[in-house]
């Protein structure tokens, strides 16, 4: 990792990374921080996954065999918080750190010290969140949506969760500022906005979403805090407040958050599919406009999460129409990916497999999303396993699959070693079969009437829950296998070329594998 490109006119000798542990604590290097983010995210993916295993174990058969219902609620709540804020978001920030400066032809992120800080907040935030398991009353158990009045009944862990969320928010906002400043200021001469790779574009738009909504979440959780400890009544009907107001504020954050979790995924897949189809991305500018439209629409659809709270009919109609409209730009993206594949010359290495898996299964999640948009039908779907199936299709086989695809795609560039292709393909196929066994039956469970967030169920739901649990255990194990593949690739393996993939285009492939410590110290020439 200490390679320094020969053409650097180096007057001082402190340009390589520091040695030992302090290298990682004090680093301001975008690649080191990217690595930290990615490893942290992998760790949190395992922690959140372990909680999912507890959930699936208890739901394997009816009756309560292993855990108390209160603990079960803690599992579902913290599983979601850890996976969203600890696994998926940091993984995307890690990918952004590694790839954005290289993709725009710059030497590093624009604000390297802030970059260090925004990462190092996270381990403390999650230590605080997870420490609530050991407090009186246990971890938060009111669901990740933390609706009052229920969440206010929590134990001593409640304020720790609130402050953990504040810290995650600060970290995200700083990360987002860094992304925007980097993209606006660090581009090599000739790298106009409409020449940027789509991963850069989607992150650019995501960063604005983050800055817009994370403060909203911070405000909402602060109001919860004062309701509980300082006798305010923002959300307490008995004091003149309004419990539904919280839901409006929360989902004003929450819906754009959904796109924060998926827009960078669009960017990754838009980089990978052209490489393995050996054909330029179809409809580049329509991809950019579609991303921007989705981001705009994400601000005016929030109440579709709340169709059952009893809104006036005008409100329900507006949010139904606006939500349905999102299908149009999302459809454009899917059609563009397929057109990119069309008449290409495709090969199916692991990154491509995960990308194709993404397109197919994200589209399935999109279909169930369209069904959920139909308000009268949502009165049946809402808060059932149908919803659970829907958001896991978009978040696991969507966001997580894109991260896997990106990891396999860029690992050889990051480490200088090829991963084991055979193992990668096994990982893909085991994951894909098991994830469908895991989540597809949940559609049927929801339609047949099983509510979400219940630790025990009526016996007619038994078979599908068993299938789902078995799928869950296999999927969980196959991610441990993924950790092994990554570990082996870091340790060694066949040396990767600079180009790595035959059809790959973009600035990252013009650098050595692994790239020099300061990426582009001389601005590259943009064609």
């Amino acid at each position, binding site marked *: 990792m200490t390679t320094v490109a020969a053409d650097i006119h180096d007057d001082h000798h402190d340009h390589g990374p520091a040695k030992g542990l302090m290298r990682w604590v004090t680093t301001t290097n975008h690649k080191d921080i990217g690595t930290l983010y990615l490893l942290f995210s992998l760790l949190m993916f395992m922690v959140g996954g372990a909680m999912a295993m507890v959930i699936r174990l208890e739901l394997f058969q009816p009756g309560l065999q292993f855990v108390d*219902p209160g603990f079960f609620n803690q599992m579902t709540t913290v599983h979601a918080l850890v996976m969203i804020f600890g696994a998926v978001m940091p993984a995307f920030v890690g990918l952004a750190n590694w790839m954005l400066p290289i993709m725009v032809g710059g030497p590093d992120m624009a604000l390297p010290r802030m970059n260090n800080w925004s990462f190092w907040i996270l381990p403390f935030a999650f230590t605080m969140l997870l420490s609530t398991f050991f407090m009186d009353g246990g971890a938060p*158990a009111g669901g990740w949506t933390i609706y009052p009045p*229920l969440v206010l009944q929590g134990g001593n862990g409640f304020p720790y969760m609130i402050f953990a969320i504040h810290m995650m928010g600060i970290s995200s906002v700083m990360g987002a500022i860094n992304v925007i400043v980097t993209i606006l200021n660090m581009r090599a001469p000739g790298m106009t906005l409409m020449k940027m790779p789509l991963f850069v574009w989607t992150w650019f738009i995501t960063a604005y979403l983050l800055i817009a909504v994370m403060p909203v979440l911070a405000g909402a959780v602060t109001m919860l805090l004062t309701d509980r400890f300082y006798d305010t009544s923002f959300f307490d*009907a008995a004091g003149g407040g309004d419990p539904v107001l919280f839901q409006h504020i929360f989902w004003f954050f929450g819906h754009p958050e959904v796109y924060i979790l998926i827009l960078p995924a669009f960017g990754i897949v838009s980089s990978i599919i052209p490489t393995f189809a050996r054909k330029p991305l179809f409809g580049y500018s329509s991809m950019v406009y579609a991303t921007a439209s989705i981001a705009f629409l994400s601000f005016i659809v929030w109440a579709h999460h709340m169709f*059952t709270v009893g809104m006036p009919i005008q409100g329900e109609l507006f949010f139904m129409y606006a939500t*349905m409209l999102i299908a*149009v730009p999302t459809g454009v993206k899917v059609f563009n990916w397929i057109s990119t594949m069309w008449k290409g010359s495709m090969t199916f290495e692991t990154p491509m497999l995960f990308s194709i898996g993404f397109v197919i299964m994200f589209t399935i999640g999109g*279909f169930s999303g369209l069904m959920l948009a139909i308000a009268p039908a949502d009165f049946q779907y809402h808060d059932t396993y149908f919803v659970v199936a829907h958001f896991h299709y978009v978040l696991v086989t969507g966001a997580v699959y894109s991260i896997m695809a990106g990891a396999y795609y860029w690992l050889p560039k990051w480490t200088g070693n090829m991963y084991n292709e055979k193992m990668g393909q096994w990982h893909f196929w085991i994951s894909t079969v098991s994830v469908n066994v895991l989540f597809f039956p949940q559609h049927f469970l929801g339609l*047949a009437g099983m*509510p979400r967030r219940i630790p025990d169920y009526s016996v007619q739901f038994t078979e599908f829950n068993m299938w789902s649990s078995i799928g869950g255990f296999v999927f969980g194990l196959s991610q441990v296998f993924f950790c092994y593949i990554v570990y082996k690739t870091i340790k060694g393996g066949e040396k990767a070329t600079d180009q790595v993939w035959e059809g790959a285009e973009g600035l990252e492939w013009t650098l050595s594998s692994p790239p020099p410590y300061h990426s582009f110290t001389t601005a590259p020439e943009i064609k």
Partner: protein
Amino acid sequence: MNKLKQLFASGALLTFMSSVAHAEYGLNMPVGVTETSRQVYDLHMLILWVCVAIGVVVFGAMIWSMIFHRKSQGAVAAQFHESMTAELVWTVVPFIILIVMAIPATKVLIDMHDASEADMSIKVTGYQWKWRYEYIGEDVDFFSSLDAASNEARQVGSDIDPATVENYLLNVDHPLVIPVNTKVRFLLTASDVIHSWWVPDFGWKKDAIPGYINEAWVKVDEPGVYRGQCAELCGRDHGFMPIVVEVKSEADYAVWLAAQKGEEVVAAVANELAVSEAVTTEDLMKKGETVYQSNCVACHQAKGEGIPGVFPAITGGVITTGPIDQHIDRAMNGKAGTAMMAYKDQLTDVELAAVITYQRNALGNKVGDSVQPSAIAALR
């Protein structure tokens, strides 16, 4: 180890027996028993088939491409990367499909919102973790909670096979009863946290929110028993507050209503009688135990140990071993901002006196005093 063995054994058994024992398990949304539920079902099937049709085209094109446009087949990559026509087509066509979908959805939504001209109204109140039904203008008012058999079987480590319990987790002690072919308006609210009232066969769910009164309605076509559950996470026992609605013919309903009114009058008289005369501590303790089991254990636990940080212990508690006036006040009026609800509307004078006496003299407590039902009645 035992639990694991049990798990595998029952897993294997259920897999083998699945075709026999649970042949009727649902794959799809129930069509339901109201005009509304059928409209919702039709909408659901329409959008489902639209999605399937789009899926066939989209995935078909992908699969075709993956089979024929692969390098190993000798495919040479074309270099086209835009087409205004194609982009226009796949923007406009989905838009038209959406408009076609939105029209029936709007119509159904407007129908569902129209709760006017209802023949009768029932107020539904969500509590942690039971439902209360008040028949407006009829003097009928009762609570409905999980039935005893399910409640016993669902305890951690009960060793009772749920398959042997009839309607496991979907049965209650006092079902809601409504007449067939009658437009019934529901007024939904909650006393503590947000709940959601859902019977799939009626085609909707609606949140019950403290401080709000939401409206919804049904007009059921066929007499029968319809089951559902609370659909909004409402705390520890969210999974254990089912809903059962018995739909009776109008004549049967009238009979039930009269009987119910009679029962409630009898209960009120019995309570007055009990209040008027002294009850022995022994009788209070006996009754107190049953009241404790059905109302208090969910939070305060079977041995009164509570759950540290959320649910205080009864054993050695500040309230339960302190002055009895405070204990009575807490039981009757609850504590704002916590899961401890006001029990004065849920329990009779006798039940309140019994459970307070029980808590002070059992579960490891030996305070030695007791309270008479008459004292509770005087505080109302």
